């Protein structure tokens, strides 16, 4: 949402620094790649040199969390169908190797062009496409550790307390076919075909070991643009995920500034060793009633969000990055930012300082018949579009669940939003060695 206050993400300064580093890496790989766009005489913006950037797969933290937001995502969840621990570990090894290759702009596995009598180890749909900053981020759901009270793969004793099932929230309409899963794989890239290619190859490699449970694509307006992108509600989304400034919240009790990644995002000493340097992701597919929203007066939309639509400024302020003054009142003593405004309820100051890193995308799945949940309970074929809300935090009990418990009850946005799916996954630390694999610390704990 405009100024959706879920936590604080990569700063513009941080993005630029990272981009500089990555550009250098990209330039090196570009030197060995043919310049196809120039050769064809067509250089659409989507084929610009930014597509040559790569995001390193290896690192203390998995890529795709602190990485500057790519323009497209495919968020997938899998059910592990095998009971064979060794087969699962083997799959994680193969997934790791393939992800490492794809992040570098390669096929999931080397292609044997000499023998076309067998299925190829890569579908080939990304051949010729640039890496497009592909990141692949893995997570483990609560059900990988325990299911119906039974230990799975000997992992129950390693399940972190923070990986407790999310509570039922008010208004939840979670569909089983869009919810949960044993393993999550999120691919993000600046090219939608690159992102889908990645999860498609990984799913194919899992046959017999894990099966696709659900998948949700997402997109954002050009994330690298200088302006904060707008979401499908027409509001700037991400103002409080600092891009160009460090936003603050002002209250009578003082000023709140964004926490650091170590404070907010990365699992620390209180987490099991295998999770240190990792993070917990909460994904929620939130259908937005765009027809309802588009029939709503703009000044009321602004009251719902708590910001001005055109400028993105907090209500009563002039510019997007003016501090959020939650104590401001009008001449009658009523709060300038209403009690049930989205930005107020999500603000750290309204939640005991709770923050999280928000990394959300819009989604658009066409249109289908739906019955709205609010008066006048319109029933029609409507857009199935909205927000693929994604947040990372060191403990979802203290961040997402704490914040959303109140939001789910009181947020004026609830008249337009329905949570229809999602999941919670523990994303372990990254792979730091050439022969390491994702989740190695868990399986060798």
């Amino acid at each position, binding site marked *: 949402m405009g100024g959706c206050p879920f936590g604080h993400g990569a700063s513009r300064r941080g993005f630029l620094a990272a981009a500089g580093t990555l550009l250098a890496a990209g330039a090196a790989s570009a030197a060995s790649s043919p310049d196809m766009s120039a050769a064809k005489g067509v250089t659409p913006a989507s084929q610009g040199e930014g597509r040559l950037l790569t995001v390193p797969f290896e690192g203390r933290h998995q890529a795709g969390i602190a990485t500057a937001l790519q323009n497209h995502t495919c968020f997938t969840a899998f059910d592990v169908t095998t009971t064979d621990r060794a087969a699962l570990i083997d799959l994680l090894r193969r997934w790791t190797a393939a992800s490492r290759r794809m992040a570098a702009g390669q096929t999931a596995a080397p292609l044997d062009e000499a023998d076309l009598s067998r299925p190829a180890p890569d579908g080939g749909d990304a051949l010729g496409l640039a890496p497009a900053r592909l990141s692949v981020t893995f997570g483990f759901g609560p059900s990988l550790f325990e299911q119906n009270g039974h230990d799975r793969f000997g992992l129950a004793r390693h399940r972190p307390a923070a990986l407790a099932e999310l509570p039922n929230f008010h208004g939840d*309409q979670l569909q089983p076919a869009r919810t949960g899963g044993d393993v999550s794989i999120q691919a993000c890239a600046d090219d939608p075909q690159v992102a889908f290619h990645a999860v498609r190859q990984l799913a194919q490699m899992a046959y017999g070991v894990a099966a696709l449970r659900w998948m949700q694509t997402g997109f954002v307006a050009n994330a690298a643009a200088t302006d904060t992108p707008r979401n499908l509600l027409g509001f700037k989304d991400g103002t409080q995920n600092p891009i160009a400034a460090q936003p603050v919240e002002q209250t009578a009790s003082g000023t709140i500034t964004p926490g650091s990644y170590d404070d907010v995002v990365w699992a620390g000493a209180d987490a099991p060793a295998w999770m240190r340097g990792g993070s917990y992701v909460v994904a929620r597919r939130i259908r937005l009633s765009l027809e309802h929203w588009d029939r709503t007066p703009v000044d*009321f939309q602004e009251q719902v969000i708590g910001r001005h639509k055109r400028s993105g400024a907090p209500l009563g302020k002039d510019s997007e990055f003016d501090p959020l003054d939650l104590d401001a009142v*009008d001449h*009658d003593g009523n709060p300038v930012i209403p009690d049930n405004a989205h930005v107020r309820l999500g603000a750290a100051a309204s939640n005991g300082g709770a923050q999280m890193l928000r990394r959300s995308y819009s989604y658009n799945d066409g249109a289908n018949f739906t*019955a709205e949940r609010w008066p006048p309970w319109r*029933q029609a074929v409507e857009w199935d579009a909205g927000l693929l809300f994604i947040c990372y935090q060191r403990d979802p009990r203290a961040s997402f669940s704490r914040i959303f418990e109140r939001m789910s009850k*009181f947020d004026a946005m609830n008249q*337009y939003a329905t949570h229809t799916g999602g999941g919670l996954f523990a994303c372990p630390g990254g792979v730091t060695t050439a022969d390491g694999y994702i989740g190695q610390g868990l399986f060798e704990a």
Partner: protein
Amino acid sequence: MASVISAALLAALTLAATPALAADSFLSTVHRHTMLASTVPANGDQNPYAVVVVPVSSGKLHRGDVLVDNFNDRSNLQGLGTTILAMDPATRGVSTFATLPRHLAGCPGGVGLTTAMAVLRRGYVVVGSLPSSDGTTATKGPGCLIVLDGQGTVAAVLAGADIDGPWGNMAVQDAGARATLFVSMAGFGVGAPGQAMVRRATVLRLALDVPAAGAGAPAVLGRTVVADSLAEQADRSVFVIGPTGLALAPDGTLYVSDAIENRVVAIPDATTRTGSAGTGRSVSAGGLLRRPLALAQAPNGDLLAVNGLDGEVVEIDPATGRQLAAQWVDADRAQTPPGSGDLFGIALTPDRRGFYYVEDENNMLLLAH
């Protein structure tokens, strides 16, 4: 949702729709609207309907608590809600008074709790069911009246040929050992959405013999249809539209909100009559009314009707039928006009200086005072 609107805006909206707010009206003494509690229980039920103040402490019931029931289940399907909540005004804490089973012996079609709810002075709760299995009237059953004891346990189930879709807020004459209930029936002849309006809704009077708390269950001494041929219609959006509000005046006149005809009618001698008054006498129609739903009686004797098609409460002098005032208690502009479809139940506070009401769009209980 009133809280999202500034007081100035609220006033502007109110004045725009109500050129003259009678200075001596009850509504002119009500200025503030306070959000009290969410009405969503642990099972996720939604769409609060009935609002009733508990008159006596008995079992889990505490005098002054506000009971609210839910018509929808967690999937927001209408006619499948099964929960009654209790809110303590002192703490604003909410507990679940009763969670009924979806299917109950003797209640045809199952359980989907409606605005028909009353708490008797001997500690029994009577609540209506107009059930569905798919959220529409295509699968509706006749339902029943369910009697709960003070522990929230089912003590009796009342059904029969004169009970089909107990719907509107009950009017009650309660002398302890004897009680008389009035409840509107909005289910007779109602089929799937798309069906034309029918004139088959009734108001049923039930005379009850009420034992002391814990000494059995109330017994029906008499059942009399005191009004009939009222309009009702299946509706895809709001399930059914029919007579929804009942208020009993001290002189025995029963006032009924006739939602489809956009009016309030009077049934004379409702406590004593031995037959039906048909559709009664029209008291007030049109004007500020926009599909009147639940009714309450203000301390000055005026009727308070909540509108279904905007967020207003309308005050009516029942003697003259004059509409004295209206207040836009729910000015949520997510709906057009503001608050449309949001209001349903209403109940006076024990001190009779304000009233409780629900907002269906965000599942809230509020206090106007």
